[in-house]
């Protein structure tokens, strides 16, 4: 097991290397320069040339890439080309915010969707089932920015239950957490229900019932445990998606997170920031997948990790 984890961690190095190559090439392939800040009002050509020289953006691409890798090996992610801050500083101050919000949303999503999915499956075609499926459909189809704007007007402007401006207290976090979790919550409810329904019809369940086990033991010990595999498959990437930050939620709720920073870094061609955040995301996704793989082994002894 330890051996397996160590090997997978080592495999991360070539993975991150290729992510770096591809990201670097794509980011630089997009036309434009980080110093084209305002499309309506370009800087003088001489100014842009001067800035590109100063930041080394005028050098041949392969040279820039080698320099970047060299710095990366020393854990130096460089400085933003448009902001007065280093990439490490930006990630260090904004990522924890996104991660906290994402984890809260994840736990909320799990806490609601697992019981809801299980109950819907056990009472298939009942009122509860229809209601939870209606919720799941609405939750996946209505875009979060629509729900967010409606929620802001309802809870903040009309009812004055929560503030709009600011971040950090539970009152500030409640709406964004809830709305960020809705999508995952709805989707996970569907998946939980579907994989419960699948597991419930298996022969081993009938066997368990035939052996005279209590209904509770059958559901928890046999159905739910086996139903968890597809759920775990989804929760891994979903976790990565949630903790890396949502642009829409962060913009609408004034959350000082990394998701917004990331999208803006792309539109602004802030190469070091794009690279830094992409590598971080790749790392998180790889770790999430590894965790899922390990979980498989725990959930299903037939799956051996070698």
């Amino acid at each position, binding site marked *: 097991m330890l051996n397996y984890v160590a090997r997978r961690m080592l495999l991360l190095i070539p993975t991150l290397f290729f992510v770096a190559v591809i990201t670097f090439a*794509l*980011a630089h392939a*997009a*036309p*434009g*320069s980080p*110093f*084209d*800040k*305002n*499309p*309506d*009002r*370009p*800087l*003088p*050509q*001489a*100014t*842009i040339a*001067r*800035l590109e*020289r*100063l*930041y*080394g953006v005028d050098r041949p691409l392969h040279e820039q890439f080698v320099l970047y890798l060299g710095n990366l090996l020393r854990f130096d992610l460089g*400085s933003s080309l*448009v*902001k*007065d*801050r280093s990439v490490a500083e930006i990630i260090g*101050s*904004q990522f924890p915010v996104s991660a906290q919000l994402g984890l809260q949303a994840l736990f909320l999503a799990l806490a609601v969707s697992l019981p809801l999915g299980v109950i819907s499956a056990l009472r298939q075609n009942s009122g509860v089932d229809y209601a939870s499926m209606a919720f799941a459909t609405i939750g996946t189809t209505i875009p979060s*920015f629509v729900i967010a*704007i409606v929620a*802001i*007007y309802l809870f*903040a*402007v009309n009812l*004055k239950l929560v*503030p*709009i*401006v*600011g*971040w950090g207290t539970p009152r500030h976090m409640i709406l964004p957490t809830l709305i960020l979790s809705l999508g995952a919550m709805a989707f996970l409810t569907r998946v939980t229900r579907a994989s419960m329904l699948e597991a419930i019809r298996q022969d081993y369940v009938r066997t368990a019932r035939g052996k005279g086990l209590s209904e509770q033991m059958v559901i928890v010990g046999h159905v739910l445990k086996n139903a968890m595999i597809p759920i775990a498959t989804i929760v891994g990437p979903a976790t990565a998606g949630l903790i890396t930050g949502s*642009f*829409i939620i962060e*913009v*609408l*709720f*004034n959350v*000082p*997170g990394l998701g*917004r*920073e990331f*999208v*803006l870094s*792309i*539109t602004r*061609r802030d190469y070091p920031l794009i690279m830094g955040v992409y590598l971080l995301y790749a790392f998180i996704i790889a770790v999430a997948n590894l965790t899922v793989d390990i979980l498989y082994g725990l959930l299903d002894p037939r799956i051996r990790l070698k």
Partner: protein
Amino acid sequence: MASAALHLRPLVAVLVTGGLVLGACFGGPSTPPNQTTTVGEGQPDPNGELITNLGSEPDTIDPHRASFVGEIAVVMSVFEGLMTLDPKTLKPVPAVAAKEPEVTNGGKTWKFTVRDGVKFSDGTPVTAKDFERGFMRTCDPKTAGDYSFVLYIVVGCEKWNLMDVRKSSTAELDAAKKAVGIHALNDKDIQFDLTEPAAYFGSIAYMWVGMPVKQESLDKGGERWTEPATYIGNGPFKLTSWKHNENMTFERNEGYWRGAPKLKKWTRVMLNEGAVAFAAYRGNEIDILGVAAEDLRTIESESDLKGQLQDVPGSCTYYIGFNAKRPPMDDPNVRLAFAKSFDREGYIKEIQKIGAAASAGFIPPGIPGYDKDDQTQKYDPAAAKAALAKSKYSGSAELRNVKFTYASNSRTKTRVEWLQQQWKANIGVEVVPDPVDSTAYTQLVKKQETTPLMFILGWCADFPDQQNWLTTVFHSSGIAKTGWKNDKYDDLVRQADQETDKAKRDGMYQEASRMLSQEAPAAWLYYVTGKILIKPWVKGVTTTALDSVLSQFRLWAVYVTKKG
């Protein structure tokens, strides 16, 4: 734009134009351009706090690197330059300088004297050396400021600034630095040697590029000197905290030389989504809001909001540029015909909503050089048709399918399609809209070789002087790459730049400005103006053409009464 962001496009578009929406908080000729809009009534709350919206997080608040509206707004509340501008006329008047500058050597040598008793917010006196350090930082190639070009008028600044830091030796850099004509003669006097008599240098001396800075701040803070601990200025407010991407708080500088400002605290939040900012204003969580055109109808339908609505003037002009080197736009008759054949008033009413018809010349109201009698490009379909008939392309294939390139977003698309209809209806010319990615668009309009046949651009004043419009933009070596070159115009604006007789100078610029409208390398589209919502408890706000949301020239006079 990367594909990952595609589904976010509508929001991204709002953000990208966010600077513009904020920048668009300027006013209309319906009101006098520069004025104090809220007069004092009600007692100032001694503990008054103002909350405004900065929009997005500033990339930098380093005075010598700042270039965006929000960045400059922060600099101007924490620092004050040698000169400031009179909010009524936008002419330079002494601020930290004790008196008007002494101009000698035929207009090429300018000496400013620092006022006694001006201190940084940490209590140390402001000296001429601090100003020298500030101006020099702007010229320093290592500072990487966007605005250094405004100081190229100073001897040696351009040469030093454009040096390649990697390839030049330390000795070469030092020699170039020594040759720059910025010298603190002693603790009080600072002298500038200019490359030519630049009558507009007084206006430059108000700008962020010349803010004084303490050596100690730079030494202690290094690259991070713009964090509150070392961001020490001499202006009315001091920065007390900066939560990145969240808010900045300022407190009054008790030792400010004009007397302590009336506001105790000023918080600037960073809401960059318009709908959320509007919600925050309604919820009394911010006190002033730059109004977006989309929200105007809602505001006007609610009487309490409508009563809080104010016009504010602006300092930008949007224009439709023509590539004067490519047929059919190489014929001035065709360009003038295009310029005279769209209804500017109708454009404002139907499309722009907030703004003013650019019915005079290039320079907008409120900025020196605004020429309200310039009717050259006035909407006149009959005259437009006549101009077109006179052109050598009349009836030729070049006037079919004229390509109009623009930075693709829904807002600009609507603008371009409206204009397309106008030209078709009024002069029978078929214009083809050609949307391109906004960053690619920026690349295209930067070089003469790639300039599209027709395009839209805006220009905003760096400092309020005709030079910054007529020379900087439309001189043949200027920023607008239309390819238009008229030797008489070039000579006229360059002479006016150096003319020391103010009346004569204004006359020369006016002649050049009329020539520009007539030759029409560009058609003036609209002057940016704005509307703000302002809570009744906010008083003493002055709006000028150069202000975005709040008055930068009389910040100390702003106050709030007790809320509610």
